């Protein structure tokens, strides 16, 4: 059950961060029009970025735990 709560916390954090970032990149004051196409592409880019960052970070953690360093 704890695992599930953490998964919800993670999903919520992801939704919040993507919304914030893509709102800023795709929409501008005075916000008269939406930009769904940009939002969709931004979401795709964000998820790809998440994967790149994730791989890079985990590679560093493994490297550090192998070399005994942190």
């Amino acid at each position: 059950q704890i695992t599930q709560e953490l998964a919800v916390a993670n999903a919520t954090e992801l939704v919040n961060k993507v919304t914030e970032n893509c709102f800023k990149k795709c929409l501008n004051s005075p916000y008269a029009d939406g930009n769904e196409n940009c939002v969709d592409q931004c979401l795709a880019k964000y998820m790809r970025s998440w994967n790149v960052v994730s791989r890079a970070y985990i590679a560093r953690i493994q490297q550090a735990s192998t070399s005994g360093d942190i």
Partner: protein
Amino acid sequence: KEIASFLEVENSKQKVQMSIHQFTNTCFKECVPTVDSGDLNAQEEQCLNNCVNRFLDTNIRIVKGLQSLN
């Protein structure tokens, strides 16, 4: 049981309040660039209205987009 439903209602009211804080913070920054009186002019008010609605549109689109990835 009554306590549980009381807590649930309070919890969801609190979430709405916190969202209003967040949207006001985000939209005030973008829609109210200068402070030369205590009143909002028509453009500022329109921009704030649009900003909330575009932010929610973006949020909903991203939630749907993420669900379709699963």
